[in-house]
C-alpha cells in the first residue's frame, strides 16, 4: 500500500524518511514516470510541496542559496537571481513551457539528474553545490559535478534530502546561455551551453567559465581550458582553438553517435559564436 506524507517543515519531513521513500515536488517528472509504469504502490511518497522553508532564494556571503522547491518560474522572476546570476534565469526561461516552469523545481531538476537539464549548466558555471541533509539532521555540501554521477543517478542516499543549491554571484561577469532543441517551446535540450567571462582593464581574461550540458551524459565544466585562457585575449585564433578543443573533448567523452556529424560542428560553431558575442 502506498504511504503518503505531506510534511509542513523540514523537521517533519526528516521524520517521514524511510528506505523506500520517493519524493515529489512539482511532479512534472514523477507523474510521467508513474504513467510509464513506475510502481509506487509499496512506496512511501513524501510530498515536499507544502514546506515553506524549502522555497525561495536567500542572499549568502558571495552568492545565493536557492531552496530546493523554488520553481523555475520563480527563478526567472527573482530579482537577486537576475542581478547575481542572470544566466540562471535565462536558462530557467527555456525549461519546458510556462506550465512546467510554474510547477517544476530546481531541486527536482538536480535530483533527477537529467543530462538535458537547462538550469544545470548555469548552476555549474556558478560553482553550484548541493546542500543535503540526512534523517539525523547532519548537513553535507557537495559540488554538483560530484553530486551528479551519471544520467539519472546522484550521490543522494535514501536517508537524505536536497535542501538547497548554493551558487556564487557572477554579477561582474558577462554571462551567456544558449540552447538548441527540436522546437522553441516544450523541447528538451539537444545541446545547451553556459559561459561567463570577466575581463581585466587591458581586455585580457581575468576569469572565464565554460560549461557544456546536454551534448554530454553529465554536464561538464571545462576547467582545463578555462585555466589556459587566463591572462590571454580572446583573439579569433584563440576562439577557433578553444571551440575546436571543446568540441573534440565532447566527441571523446560522449563517443561517436549517429548525431555526431551534426552535433560536433554545431558545438564548435556555437562556442565560437558565444565567445565572440561576449567579446563585443
Amino acid at each position, binding site marked *: 500500500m*502506498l504511504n503518503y506524507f505531506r510534511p509542513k517543515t523540514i523537521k517533519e519531513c526528516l521524520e517521514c524518511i524511510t528506505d523506500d521513500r520517493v519524493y515529489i515536488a512539482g511532479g*512534472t517528472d514523477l*507523474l510521467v514516470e508513474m504513467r510509464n509504469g513506475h510502481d509506487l504502490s509499496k512506496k512511501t511518497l513524501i*510530498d515536499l510541496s*507544502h514546506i515553506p522553508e524549502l522555497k525561495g532564494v536567500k542572499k549568502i556571503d558571495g552568492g545565493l542559496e536557492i531552496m530546493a522547491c523554488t520553481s523555475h518560474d520563480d527563478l526567472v522572476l527573482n530579482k537577486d537571481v537576475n542581478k547575481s546570476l542572470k544566466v540562471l534565469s535565462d536558462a530557467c526561461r527555456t525549461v519546458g*513551457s*510556462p*506550465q*512546467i516552469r510554474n510547477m517544476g523545481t530546481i531541486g527536482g531538476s538536480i535530483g533527477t539528474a537529467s543530462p538535458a537539464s537547462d538550469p544545470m549548466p548555469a548552476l555549474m558555471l556558478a560553482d553550484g553545490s548541493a546542500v543535503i541533509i540526512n534523517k539525523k539532521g547532519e548537513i553535507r555540501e557537495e559540488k554538483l559535478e560530484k553530486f551528479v554521477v551519471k544520467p539519472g543517478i546522484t550521490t543522494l542516499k535514501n536517508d537524505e534530502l536536497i535542501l538547497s543549491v548554493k551558487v556564487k554571484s557572477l554579477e561582474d561577469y558577462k554571462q551567456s546561455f544558449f540552447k538548441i532543441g527540436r522546437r522553441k517551446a*516544450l523541447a528538451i535540450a539537444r545541446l545547451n551551453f553556459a559561459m561567463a567571462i570577466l575581463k581585466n582593464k587591458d581586455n585580457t581574461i581575468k576569469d572565464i567559465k565554460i560549461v557544456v550540458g546536454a551534448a554530454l551524459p553529465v554536464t561538464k565544466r571545462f576547467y582545463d581550458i578555462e585555466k589556459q585562457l587566463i591572462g590571454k585575449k580572446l583573439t579569433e585564433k584563440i576562439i577557433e582553438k578553444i571551440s575546436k578543443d571543446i568540441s573534440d573533448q565532447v566527441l571523446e567523452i560522449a563517443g561517436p553517435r549517429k548525431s555526431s556529424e551534426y552535433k560536433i560542428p554545431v558545438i564548435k560553431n556555437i562556442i565560437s559564436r558565444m565567445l565572440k558575442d561576449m567579446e563585443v
Partner: protein
Amino acid sequence: MKLMLNMTINNEKISVEIEPDSRLLDVLRDDLGLLGTKEGCGVGECGACTVIIDGKTANSCVTLAASMEGCDIKTIEYLSKNGKLHPMQKSFIDNSALQCGFCTPGFVLSGVNLLERNPNPTEEEIKEGISGNICRCTGYEQIVKAVEDVRDEKYIKDGACDE
C-alpha cells in the same frame, strides 16, 4: 490509503476523497465532473489539461491531486458567468481561433492567465505565454489575434461580452 483533499475550485470550497497517487486531472474530471479540462498527451507537453493553480498555469495531468491541499484552482468552467462568456472565450470564437476545440480550454486559460500576470504583452510575449499549449488544427495566428483583441480591450471586462 484514501485521503481527504480540501481545495478551492472555481471559488467553491470542496472536500473530496482521493487516492494519494491520483492526478489532479482525474479528480477534476472523474470525481468532480469538470469535463472542460481535457487529457491530451498525459505527459505535460500538450497543455490540453491546463488549469490555473494559485494564479499560475499548470498541467493537471502531471500534478498530484494530493499536493493541491489548500490550493486555489480555476478550470475553464470558471470563466463564463450566468451564461455569458468570458471575453477570452468570446474573442476565440470571433477570431475563429478553434476548429476541433480540444485544445481550446487550455489555450483560453493560458491566455487569461497571461493577461492577469502581464496586462499588456507584446506579440512575442503572447506567443511565449501560449507556448505550453499545442493546437493541431487551427494554427496559432488566430489564437494570438484572439489574445491580442482581449489585451486591446475590444471586449468589456468582468465576464460580460460586448455584443
